[in-house]
Structure formats: structure tokens, C-alpha cells
């Protein structure tokens, strides 16, 4: 009993130490540092393409690295690979389980993955010999739903789950290489750093964690949100993390200062953030909300500089293409839209 009390005291003391250490480097705020820059002018993006074909709510989309291809997942039980320029469906992959919550495109363009309430991450080979797209591997071990997945390469993928863990898998053998445990709530979203050495996860314990992929440990934990974190992404230079939450705000945390630098919020916005993506320079943050809109934020000035209104239901997913040329939104209204 004595040891428990000792450990509890030590934990409290360490938390206070972290708070103090963060405060000690807080010699200014991002607001002050950006005082000399003018707010970005009004950003007005137009819908250039509407991708029609899904028959139910779209839950996820992910751009390919090369070319103007993207993959989307819908609870109509299909994964569709789209050519966003022609709006043609390159592949329409029927899924074993229609309860899909996430999808991902491998950087090579050879594979796509998806998963959801089946608790599994299914990997599909788009470049099979006979032209048919088949399940290549079913990664099963999570004891909760698959909320997000991202490829590191054709042989490794990271998944996040409702079982509160994230896992690094060896796709070839279908086995877990590393289990990243620590969150105290469902993991909802993950993003891989530009150098592929780290990943960040957002969870229903209101925190975001930075994980060292090779060492298998959590390096930093960021709090401040007052509800579930649904969306997470890296700032393009890899030194900051952006989160979107059910508390109706987005936050930017700097990894090297180990703290929140700014919150993107407006009293008129009272619904949760479902998805987010930074523009190529990081100056704009596009965030999808439960009220069917996407708000565009000036990341340095924390001001709303644009709105994308065009969907008839919740915007569930958003992504900016690799060359930064366009933004894609996916919605519960079953459509994807390409904007620029």
C-alpha cells in the first residue's frame, strides 16, 4: 500500500515538473510572434469535380502520393480508387465487411488498405498479375474497431484502434511488430511524420501522443482538448502537430517546445471537428466539421479565412493532394468533392 501511495505522489510530482518545464520555455506566444504578419486574404475555393458513385456515407479518403488518384471508403461496402481529373473509377473493390471506417493508399501506389468494425486491417494489391484486385493480407489482432491506418511502405503499416492501442504490422507475415499502448481511450486517428520516424495518435482520452516508431515508445503527450480528438495531422515541416476535436476546436502543438502554441476556435462554431489537413506550406488548415462545412484557418493568425460549403451532410474526411494543388472532401452525403 505504501508503494502505491509513493508512486501516485511521484506521478503527480512528474506531471507538475512537465507543466513547469513547458512554462519555463514559454517566452512568447505564436500570436505575438506572428503579430507582424497580415492575415491571409479570403480563400475562395470552388468545387472543380464531384466524384459520384458511392451509395452510402463516405467515412474516409486518402490521396495517392503519385498522380491524381485517391481512394475512398464507404459503408456501402466499397473501396473506390478514383482518377480525380477524369472522375473515372479506376477500381471499385467490394469489401467483406461494409462497416469500414478508414482507408489508406500506400506511398508506392501498389496497395490500399481499409478496416473498421471488423477489427481488422485488410490490405489489397492493386497491381496483381491478372488485373483483379484481391485481398493480400488480413491483419487481425486488435480487439476493437480499426479507426485509422497509414502505410510506411509496402511492407509495413500502422493502425489505430478502439482498443486504445496503435500497432506497427509486418504486412508480409501478417504479424504485429510493435504495439504502442498508453492511451486511456479509443485511438481515433493517426498520422506519420514526413521522415517516417514518428507517428502521432489522437484519442478519446483527449490527448495526442508522439510515438517513436523504431523504439516503440511514446515520447510526448499533449493535452488541452476538452473532448475526443477525432483528427490529427503533421504540420508540413514535421515539427508541429495539428489536432481536431469534438470540443469544436483545432489546436497546434509544437513538438520541440513540447506544448500547445495556438487554438483555432470561434464562438459561432459549436460542433465537432471530424477531419483536417494542412495546405502545402502549412499556412492554411482545412478542417471538416459536423455542421457539413469545412472551415479554412490561417494557421499563424488563428483566423477563419474561408469556408467550403457544398455538402449536404457531415464532412467526414478531407485531404490535400501531394502537390498541394487540390483539396478533396468526403461526406456522409455519399459524394467526394475536389476543390481548388
Amino acid at each position, binding site marked *: 500500500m505504501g508503494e502505491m501511495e509513493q508512486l501516485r505522489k511521484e506521478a503527480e510530482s512528474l506531471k507538475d515538473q512537465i507543466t513547469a518545464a513547458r512554462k519555463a520555455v514559454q517566452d512568447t506566444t505564436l500570436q505575438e510572434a506572428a503579430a507582424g504578419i497580415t492575415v491571409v486574404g479570403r480563400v475562395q475555393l470552388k468545387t472543380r469535380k464531384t466524384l459520384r458513385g458511392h451509395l452510402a456515407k463516405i467515412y474516409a479518403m486518402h490521396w495517392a502520393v503519385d498522380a491524381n488518384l485517391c481512394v475512398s471508403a464507404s459503408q456501402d461496402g466499397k473501396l473506390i480508387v478514383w482518377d480525380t481529373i477524369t472522375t473515372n473509377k479506376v477500381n471499385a473493390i467490394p469489401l467483406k465487411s461494409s462497416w469500414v471506417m478508414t482507408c489508406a493508399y500506400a506511398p508506392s501506389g501498389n496497395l490500399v488498405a481499409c478496416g473498421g468494425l471488423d477489427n481488422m486491417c485488410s490490405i489489397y494489391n492493386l497491381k496483381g498479375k491478372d488485373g483483379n484486385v484481391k485481398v493480400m493480407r488480413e491483419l487481425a489482432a486488435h480487439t476493437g474497431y480499426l479507426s485509422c491506418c497509414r502505410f510506411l511502405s509496402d511492407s509495413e503499416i500502422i493502425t489505430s484502434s478502439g482498443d486504445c492501442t496503435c500497432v506497427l504490422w509486418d504486412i508480409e507475415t501478417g504479424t504485429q511488430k510493435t504495439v504502442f499502448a498508453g492511451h486511456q481511450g479509443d485511438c481515433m486517428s493517426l498520422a506519420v511524420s514526413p521522415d517516417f520516424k514518428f507517428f502521432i495518435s489522437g484519442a478519446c482520452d483527449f490527448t495526442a501522443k508522439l510515438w517513436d516508431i523504431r523504439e516503440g515508445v511514446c515520447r510526448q503527450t499533449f493535452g488541452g482538448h476538452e473532448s475526443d480528438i477525432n483528427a490529427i495531422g503533421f504540420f508540413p515541416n514535421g*515539427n508541429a502537430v495539428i489536432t481536431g476535436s469534438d470540443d469544436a476546436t483545432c489546436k497546434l502543438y509544437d513538438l520541440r517546445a513540447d506544448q500547445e502554441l495556438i487554438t483555432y476556435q470561434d464562438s459561432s462554431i459549436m460542433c465537432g471537428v471530424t477531419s483536417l489537413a494542412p495546405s502545402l506550406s*502549412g499556412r492554411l488548415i482545412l478542417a471538416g466539421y459536423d455542421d457539413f462545412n469545412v472551415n479554412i484557418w490561417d494557421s499563424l493568425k488563428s483566423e477563419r479565412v474561408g469556408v467550403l460549403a457544398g455538402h449536404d451532410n457531415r464532412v467526414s474526411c478531407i485531404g*490535400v493532394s501531394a502537390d498541394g*494543388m*487540390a483539396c478533396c472532401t468526403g461526406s456522409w452525403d455519399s459524394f467526394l468533392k475536389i476543390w481548388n
Partner: protein
Amino acid sequence: MSNNSAANSSLVLAQKAVKQLRLEASVRRIKVSQAAAELKAFCLQNAHKDPLLTGVPSSDNPFRPPKSCVLF
């Protein structure tokens, strides 16, 4: 018996929590002024290369075929 094992696992969890907090407390932090300056610099340096920020002229926009005037 079960009381003991429950107490043991709570102890293990508490030990893990403390170990994790020690790790996170030892992170080397830079000043917010430096972090903010670098974020600002990255945004400004890459602004001209950011199509969503600068806008894309229709002639260069792959998502928008340019309207051409045809004279017969």
C-alpha cells in the same frame, strides 16, 4: 488471492505510468520564440509554392480544362 493479483497489477500499472512520465519529463525543449519563428519562416518561405494559398490560374489547373475560343 484475487485481491492480491489485482493489487499487483495496479502496482505494475502505476510503475509503468511513472516510468513513462519520467521519459516525457526528460524531453529537451526549445523556447517557444524559436519554435514560433521557425513555423512562421516555413510558412512564409513556402507560401509561393502553395497552390491553395496563391490560387491556381485556370490554364495551369489540371482540374479545370481551359475554356478556349474557337474561331471558325
